[in-house]
């Protein structure tokens, strides 16, 4: 009896300990495996507009960012490094950010994006289920979201998850 109780106690401790190591902020996105929501938005600092339909046939990354977002700064060097390789197009979704601030931010820290689009009121962010900038979506040739990173992309994540997945999707 006593041994049974002790085992039950440690089982409970183990269960709670596993729970503690998980990040409650990482909510699995229901958008994985679904077509990337359509939109048409103005490009940042350019007269042209952009719609994800233009990217059909290409694997590409959509990165949600803002100049007011602190952890975007952490992520930024990783994206700059990535953009040097020109592996796949990297398009920014500038989320709820005044365009002049956004342009200043890019001038200051470097612009890794092919271009960014302006989601001034965050409406497109809602369609993409954005709740914590930065977020990054990997979209395949058919326009389907294959992977979503919530929070900054780290060098490890880029090397171990995103790049292999790009390779797989391009095959």
């Amino acid at each position, binding site marked *: 009896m006593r041994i049974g109780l002790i085992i039950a106690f440690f089982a409970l401790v183990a269960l709670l300990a596993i729970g503690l190591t998980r990040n409650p902020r990482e909510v699995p*996105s229901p958008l994985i495996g679904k077509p990337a929501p359509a939109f048409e938005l103005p490009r940042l600092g350019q007269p042209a507009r952009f719609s994800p339909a233009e990217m059909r046939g290409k694997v590409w990354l959509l990165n949600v960012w803002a100049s007011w977002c602190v952890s975007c700064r952490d992520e930024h060097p990783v994206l700059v490094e990535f953009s040097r390789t020109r592996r796949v197009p990297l398009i920014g979704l500038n989320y709820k950010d005044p365009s002049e601030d956004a342009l200043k931010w890019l001038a200051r820290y470097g612009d890794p994006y092919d271009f960014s689009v302006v989601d001034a009121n965050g409406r497109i962010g*809602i369609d993409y289920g954005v709740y914590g900038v930065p977020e990054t979506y990997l979209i395949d040739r058919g326009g389907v979201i294959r992977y979503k990173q919530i929070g900054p992309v780290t060098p490890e994540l880029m090397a171990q998850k995103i790049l292999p997945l790009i390779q797989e999707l391009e095959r």
Partner: protein
Amino acid sequence: MNRLLCLLAALLLPLGLQAREAPPVAADEAVEQRLVKIAEELRCLVCQNESLAASRADLALDLKREVRAMIKAGRTDAEIRDFMVKRYGDFVLYRPPLKESTLLLWLGPFALLLAGFAVLAIFVRRRRAAKATILSAEDERRADALLKGSEHP
């Protein structure tokens, strides 16, 4: 006399001021009430222990704006919930649907309760069994004799 006039004037002064009923917070009361009802059942993604109705987070305000627009567009509650689930998953619902991935969530507490009852039942039965065998008939007689003896020393 002068003082009386002053007093009269002072008394008449408030008549010029008209109290009006406080204007409603939002233009359409019915829409707001439905919004609150729906938003209370939805989780704020930014501050996860708050409902969308209670939260003042930026995203929560945006989402409430979306819900308000959908109510005005005549969408049903189920359609609005579906809109949220499609974007943020079952996690936004404070009462997620019963399915394979939420089975533990729904049935876990009852399973724990049952386990608790089982342990309790085992405990009680063991204790009862132990009590029953503590005294033999002989011991019982001796105990009775001792107790009687102690009543009249």
